[in-house]
């Protein structure tokens, strides 16, 4: 009875908590710098069980899990390289704002959006 199941409460972060977190790259994810293009990240596609079962039906013995490549632009590559586990989100924002001479508001908006996108794909975790 999925319809009447109690909705899971999603834990919410305050802004202060989110800024104090340290984003770290997922060790399972492989990445390399492609000259003149930026960083290319390759990650295993996380399929929902329904789609995984369909895939299994067409390809019963897959040799390897499906992967996807993500090409980051210059700014994305810079931030990706900064995700070494030594900087908090606040440090990333400050460094990025200072490096590009932009306001903290612009830096915060772009960095948090970027981290959220990486998080959705399972490429980073917050410590």
């Amino acid at each position, binding site marked *: 009875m999925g319809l009447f199941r109690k909705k899971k409460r999603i834990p919410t972060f305050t802004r202060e908590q989110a*800024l104090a977190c340290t984003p770290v790259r997922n060790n399972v994810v492989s990445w390399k710098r492609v000259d003149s293009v930026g960083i290319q990240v390759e990650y295993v596609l996380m399929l929902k069980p329904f789609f995984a079962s369909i895939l299994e039906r067409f390809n019963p013995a897959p040799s390897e899990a499906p992967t996807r490549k993500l090409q980051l632009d*210059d*700014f994305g590559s810079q931030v990706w390289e900064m995700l070494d586990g030594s900087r908090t989100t*606040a440090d990333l*924002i*400050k460094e990025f704002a200072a490096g*590009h*001479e*932009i*306001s*903290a*508001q*612009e*830096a*915060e*908006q*772009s960095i948090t959006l970027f981290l959220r996108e990486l998080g959705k794909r399972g490429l980073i975790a917050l410590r």
Partner: protein
Amino acid sequence: MEKTIPFQKTIGWNGLSLAIPASWDTIVRDDRHLIFEQELRPVLELRWELPSSNSYGPTQGERIIAQLQKEAGRTLIPADPPRSLIGFTPDYHIQCFNPPSSSTGECALLTCITCGAPILLKFYSDFYHQVVTDPKIIGSLTCWHAKGTDSQWAVHDISFRLPQGFSLDSHSFRFGLSSLSFSTRTSQLTLCRLAPASEHLKRNSFQELFASFSKSDPEQIEIIDEHTLQYTGVPGIGARLIGRLGRRKLFVVARFKHISQHDRIIGFRLESSQPIQPDTVQTIQDSYGIIQEEKTDSHIHP
């Protein structure tokens, strides 16, 4: 002895202006809601409303206090105004309250005696004494609503003088592209700032960027100098008549300027359904620029 804080920048936003230390960052939360931060920690919050002409029912100030009490879940206890606010007495009616939440040191409601606009100030506890004891920060607060002149805007690294009659429609401070949009009954003004310009110019030429911004034919673009482009669109008499029926804004003046020393491109587009006054264009053109920020240590310490 009190330590005074060096002031390097003035913030002007939607009818209010204020001098703040250079180390503070301005966060534009809403059309009339600013938060000032230092090292990503909030220092001071400002919220205000446009003066209302409605004389019935509770005043704007009373409604704000009621809302604060609702948020706090209890009655707010009036407090003595801090020293920095006492100098304000001739211009503002002042009401101060104890903390409505744990993160806030104190809040004060100023009501402009001239125009009646209510301004709510929230002082954050970590920096409360530093902000409140220095009269320069709050003392520089100016309400432009009743001045009846062009208003001065300065936010992040852009500043300009907005001709009278325009009101803020929307704003966006995305990375790489900041834009502000204003309107009057007949005109629409859009200001933009591209940063860093070098990154944008890697992908598109200066002319291409301008053609896309001004919505003009590249052949009609006028090259003022190496770093400045302009487009002026004046419709013919036939187009003017047809445009009038659809209330289309066919008169256009757009300008783009590459400020290489700051690695910025700034531009504006003014569209109107009526012929554009040269004074309006001149005011925007002359005043719109990048603020040169001085790098000095002006941190305040909690």
